[in-house]
Structure formats: C-alpha cells, structure tokens
C-alpha cells in the first residue's frame, strides 16, 4: 500500500518529468509499478491533481496522447515576452544524433550512445521530438524496456526527402569535403573546440 499523499506526489512528479504526455499505462507500469493500483484509483489521483492546480499558473490537462501540465492559456500573451528574438542554432551533437536515428532506426538511446561514444542528453531527444522529427515507435523488450526512436514523415518533409534512403547518396564525400573533414578531425584531437561550442540545442 502507498499513502495517498505519496501516491499523488509520485504521479505529479512523473507527469512533470516526462518528455511527452504520459498515459495511465505508462504511469502504472513505470513509476507506480511497485504498487497495486487500478486505473479508476489513478484517474481519481489525476482528478485531484487537476483540482489542486485549478488556481495556479499551470494546469493539468488530458490530451490525445496522455496527461501533461501546460501553462494556463490566459497567460499566453504575457508569456510571449519570455522568448526574445534570436535565431538559435542546433549543436553538432544534435545533428549526429538525428543522423544516427535516421540511419539506424528503430534505435534505442543506448545504441546511439554506443556509436557516438558519448551520452546523449535528454534535451537533445526532447528537442528532436518537439520538432516532430523523431518519435518513439515502441520499446525494446530488454531490461528497462528502452524506447525505440525513429524518424517521422515530418522529418522527411522538412528536408524534402522521399525516403531516408535518399540521405546516404547525399552524404557521399565530395573530394573537397573529405579534406575539410580531415582537418576537422585533427582539430578535434588537439581539443581545439573553442570555436565549436556546444550550446544547448
């Protein structure tokens, strides 16, 4: 058994921490896996949470793909000022992750990390999903059931590709490009990364 208060805290934290809306099943199988909880009970908890946030700046809503917190719509016009006009840029890490997903899909985060040799930040995965270029298409049946990522139709549309198969043809190294890459590899080795700063994606 789990105390009501603790249960509510867990569900609340899980919805806030999720990268995308969460379903009842995800909650029951994930954060609540250790407790015997039925769906009506969980719904009740979510209803209570909805109620708790009734007067706050954010609200708990149920959308097509599950539950999520979002800012109260009346606040929209005021929140607009949060994002000053600046053209952000994506990091090399984000591009490499995207390229790997396109090439090796359906692929887990661990598999991406194995190839790149560095851990993939959650922010990158979140950005790619927010842009609608990448989505979870399932879970691998291995311990931990890691998510399987794949590219989407929106990804192909954005880059005007018919299929992912069009990519490698483009990626054939042109002679002058090969040189560029070599020198890039050299500077990598001497850790001259000052110019190649990793901003947040």
């Amino acid at each position: 058994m789990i105390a009501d208060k603790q249960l509510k805290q867990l569900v609340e934290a899980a919805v806030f921490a999720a990268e995308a809306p969460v379903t009842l099943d995800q909650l029951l199988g994930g954060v609540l896996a250790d407790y015997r909880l039925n769906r009506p009970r969980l719904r009740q908890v979510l209803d209570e949470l909805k109620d708790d946030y009734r007067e706050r700046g954010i609200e708990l809503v149920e959308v097509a793909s599950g539950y999520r917190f979002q800012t109260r719509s009346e606040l929209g016009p005021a929140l607009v000022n949060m994002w000053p006009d600046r053209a952000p840029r994506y990091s090399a890490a984000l591009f490499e992750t995207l390229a790997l997903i396109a090439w090796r899909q359906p692929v887990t985060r661990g598999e991406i990390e194995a190839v790149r040799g560095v851990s993939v930040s959650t922010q990158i995965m979140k950005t790619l999903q927010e842009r609608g270029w990448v989505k979870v298409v399932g879970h691998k049946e291995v311990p931990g059931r890691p998510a399987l990522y794949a590219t989407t139709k929106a990804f192909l549309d954005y880059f005007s590709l018919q299929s992912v198969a069009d990519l490698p043809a483009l990626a054939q190294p042109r002679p002058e490009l090969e040189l560029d890459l070599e020198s890039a590899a050299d500077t990598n080795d001497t850790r001259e990364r000052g110019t190649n700063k990793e901003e947040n994606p």
Partner: protein
Amino acid sequence: MVTEQQSLPLGFVRGEPVFEQPEDLYIPPEALELMLDLFSGPMDLLLYLIRKQKMDILDLPILRITEQYMVYVDMMREMKLELAADYLLMAAMLAEIKSRMLLPKIASDEDEEEDPRAELVRRLKEYEIVRSGAHELDMQPQQERDYFIAHADTDARDLAGHAPPEVSLEELSLALLKVMQLVDVQAHHQVKREALSTRERMSRILEKLQTNTRIEFSQLFETNEGRSGVVVSFLAILELNKEGLIALTQAESYSVIYVVSKSTAGATEHRAEG
C-alpha cells in the same frame, strides 16, 4: 600505524617473501577485463592495493607494493588485455624506486638524501584527494538519477511566432557522414540505400503496431508500391522478427499470419502475459 603481520612467508616471489597470499589476487580471467574498467588508472589500482593490504601510505612498503602491482599487471598482460601504457609506466616507476631503495646509502655531509618514495607518496596523497572529490561529486544530487526537471508545455511560444532553428540538408548530410565514419572504425558496414529503406519501413511497421498490437501480415503490404515496396516491407518484417521486436503468429498451417508487437508501450495485455 603499520599493521604488518609477521608470520611465516608463504613463499617467495622474485626473491621477496610473500606473507599472505592475498586471495583477492586470484581473479578469474573474465573478471580481469572487468577489473580494468573498475580501476580508473594505475594510481587507483595502487591505492586499492595499499588499502587492501592495510599498508601505511606514509611509510609505503615499496617492495611489497611493487610485487603486488606487478602481479596484477603481469596477469593483465598474460591475458593479452589491452593495457594502457600508463600502467607500465607506473610499473617502471615502482621498479626504479625499489632499486634506489636497495642501493646502499652513501654517507654524505650534504643535506639528507630525499626518500625515493617521497614523490610517489605525494602523488598518491594528491590523487586520493581527487578521488574523494569524485566521490563527493557522485554524492551530489544528479539530474535524471535523483531529480528530474519539471516542465510544463506552453502554447505561448507559438503565439510568439518563435521559429525553431533553420536546418539545412547539408548539415544533416555532414553529420551522417561523420557518424558513418565513426561506425566504419568499429565495423565495416556497407550502407546501402535499400538497407536504409528497410530500417525506415521497420519504424513505420512498429508505429502501426502501436495503435493495433496485432495486424494481419498481408495488411503490412501496400500493393500500390510495386514490387520493390513489397520487398522492402518483407525485409523489414524479417529484420524486426530477427531483432525480437515483433512476433509472427499463426493458429494453424495455411491460416492467417498475424504480426504481433513485442514492443509497444500500449501493449498491456501482452505485458500481462509475460
């Protein structure tokens, strides 16, 4: 604080008496590889040995520590494990200190000769502090281990008309080229266009199986794609099956074949079975 237990030596290794044959030195070969990962370097290994043998770091029994260190290094070399040169460098340093310790002291009027161990002891102490620093860091709350960032979605950004970064196809192609080279170092993978279509089709099939955990085999083919499309779908199904992401089921011979998801999040009934 030297807690050396004097007892009969168990034997002699390279002329040095071995008092206790430390059982932790007998390590199954498969564990050795693990051990290399366990130690972050030769300093770490040295400190471990010092701890294990309850040696006094300030009055380091250089003969014993050198012996023990060499036992490890020799084992690793015998197993032909890829041993960082740093381990051998440390071995050389230990051997050098050992030989200097063995040299008879030459009486001299000059200032007292520095203990040959001093530099090593200094480095060990310094490293020990850094290692405890690493431990302190690990004890700090860490994102996605101890806490997660709490986010709320917002529609305000759309109101702001804040466009996400523009990305060129060239940038993506370059990134792909880079990861292809990365993989090329690891294994010689021939990236074929057909293979890529298959990977992509695999994703689409998994996607379909998310809404419908059981789909009739034939429904995964779109005839309007022509021959090559059918082949791609077929290869994708075989590959998914091979990677254990789907299962093919059939009640009896010649009956309808179903493709069943083994991987979708929504497949709760399936989870319940397993």
